[in-house]
């Protein structure tokens, strides 16, 4: 038998070959060291790919900021756990009932319910709760979720001292900004499948001067992504002191201009798209468009600008920056860029 190609090896490892073919392959692998090495590599790739994909399961739900009820603090990343206790109770009973029936009736369904690895329990719980949640009236769980979010206060935060904030921003932003950096850096010597090794690098943070970090990060993000409003603040090239002065002037404007504003239309674009595919009799899954909305322009700073939130849930919906002394420039991915005069400012609803 000639040497094995990759596709055949993977099919063999995936159990997709018929018995005769599989026997031929395993006999060949037993006697051919070259193919044996390929098989070992393939096993590593299969496991590595699986691990990488598992990292995608932990998606933070919506984009509401997590303030502190103990429940939320314990498990901030998975929305399903914000359901009220009575919902959880009923859901738990349903999970047991469904789980029992499923296991008793159809052992092959185990794969639908079993966790990928023990470490992925939260995605398992989220998945099964999602199932149970759909068994309840879906609107019930949505309502309880929404009311939990509303009950949580969202006080405006003053901007923290410059030095530690720059470090935090640098850490969080490095994910996106890093691939745009010109540094060639020594190879990390990462092995195939070494997905869990990020922890060793997460703690390391360079400590340049705060102004330079902020400028540097903003400049790189701005250069790469045309959407960012903060691009307007940082003209390239200028000497560091001049840039720092421009930044601090803008920052003062932004502190003064922060607050609530009336905007004409703020609605998820997705609503229109889903209406095309969903028949008229199905319940609409997204909130309808409102003619005029109030949004909160926060002082929370990110490399992309300051944060825009809805006043109802505090959900992050975009970024803003000062556009001169009397107007603000909003960048809302769902509704595009817009500039508002400070006269659009309103008192924040309680």
């Amino acid at each position: 038998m000639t040497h094995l190609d990759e596709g055949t090896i993977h099919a063999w490892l995936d159990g997709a070959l018929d018995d005769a073919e599989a026997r031929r392959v395993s006999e060949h692998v037993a006697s051919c060291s070259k193919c044996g090495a390929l098989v070992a590599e393939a096993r590593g790739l299969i496991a590595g790919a699986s691990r990488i994909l598992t990292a995608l399961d932990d998606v933070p739900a919506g984009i509401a900021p997590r303030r502190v009820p103990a429940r939320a603090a314990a498990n901030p990343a998975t929305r399903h756990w914000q359901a009220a206790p009575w919902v959880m109770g009923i859901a738990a009973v349903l999970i047991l009932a469904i789980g029992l029936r499923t296991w008793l009736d159809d052992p092959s369904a185990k794969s639908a319910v079993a966790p990928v690895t023990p470490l992925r329990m939260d995605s398992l719980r989220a998945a099964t709760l999602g199932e149970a949640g759909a068994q309840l009236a879906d609107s019930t769980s949505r309502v309880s979720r929404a009311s939990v979010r509303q009950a949580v206060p969202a006080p405006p935060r003053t901007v923290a001292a410059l030095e530690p904030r720059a470090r935090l921003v640098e850490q969080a932003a490095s994910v996106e900004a890093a691939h745009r950096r010109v540094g060639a850096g020594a190879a990390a010597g990462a092995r195939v499948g070494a997905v869990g090794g990020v922890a060793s690098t997460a703690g390391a943070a360079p400590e340049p001067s705060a102004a330079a970090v902020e400028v540097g990060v903003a400049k790189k993000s701005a250069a790469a992504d045309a959407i960012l409003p903060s691009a307007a603040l940082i003209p390239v090239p200028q000497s560091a002191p001049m840039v720092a002065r421009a930044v601090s002037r803008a920052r003062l404007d932004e502190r003064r201009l922060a607050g609530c504003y009336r905007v004409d239309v703020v609605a998820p674009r997705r609503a229109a798209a889903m209406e095309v595919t969903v028949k008229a009799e199905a319940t609409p899954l997204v909130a309808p468009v409102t003619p005029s909305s109030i949004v909160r322009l926060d002082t929370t700073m990110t490399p992309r600008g300051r944060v825009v939130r809805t006043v109802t849930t505090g959900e992050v919906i975009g970024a803003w920056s000062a556009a001169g002394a009397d107007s603000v420039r909003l960048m809302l991915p769902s509704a595009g860029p817009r500039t508002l005069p400070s006269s659009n400012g309103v008192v924040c609803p309680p």
Partner: protein
Amino acid sequence: MTDVEALFRQYHAPLVRYLTRRLGDRDWADEVAQETFVRALRQPDLKNERAWIFAVATNLVRDEARKDMRRRRHLELLSAEAKAESGDAPPDELVRSEERALARRAVEMLSETDREALLMKEEGLDYHEIAEALELSVASVGTTLSRARRRLVEAYEDLRRQEEGGRRTG
């Protein structure tokens, strides 16, 4: 008559996980999953149920996913940064979001078919089901998966190296 309740019990969880990984948004994944099962209701009879369900869900998201991906990624990054800034996020959460962002970028570097085939394999679909759902020949599924796995792992390692290198010089 298709027993949608049984279908739901068996396939809803893996479908939602598949869609979450594909789209990076659990709300959206839930909606598409709902729509998929609504359509299953209209089918008088379903052979190869799992392949059909994953095929319908995949087609539902294909166009939308391309358009919306940038917007959602933008928002996800914004919120992660805002969380980090507000000091609410514990350090291991930052690590996890970082890994997730890297994984997402690596996955998006795959071609659509490669990505979908790999995600379906992770949900337990066999080669025949993947071939049917994606309209491939069964013989090509092995090659597709081997290519997808290799490219995913290499892309991820490259991104990690770039990021670590950037950290040191930045």
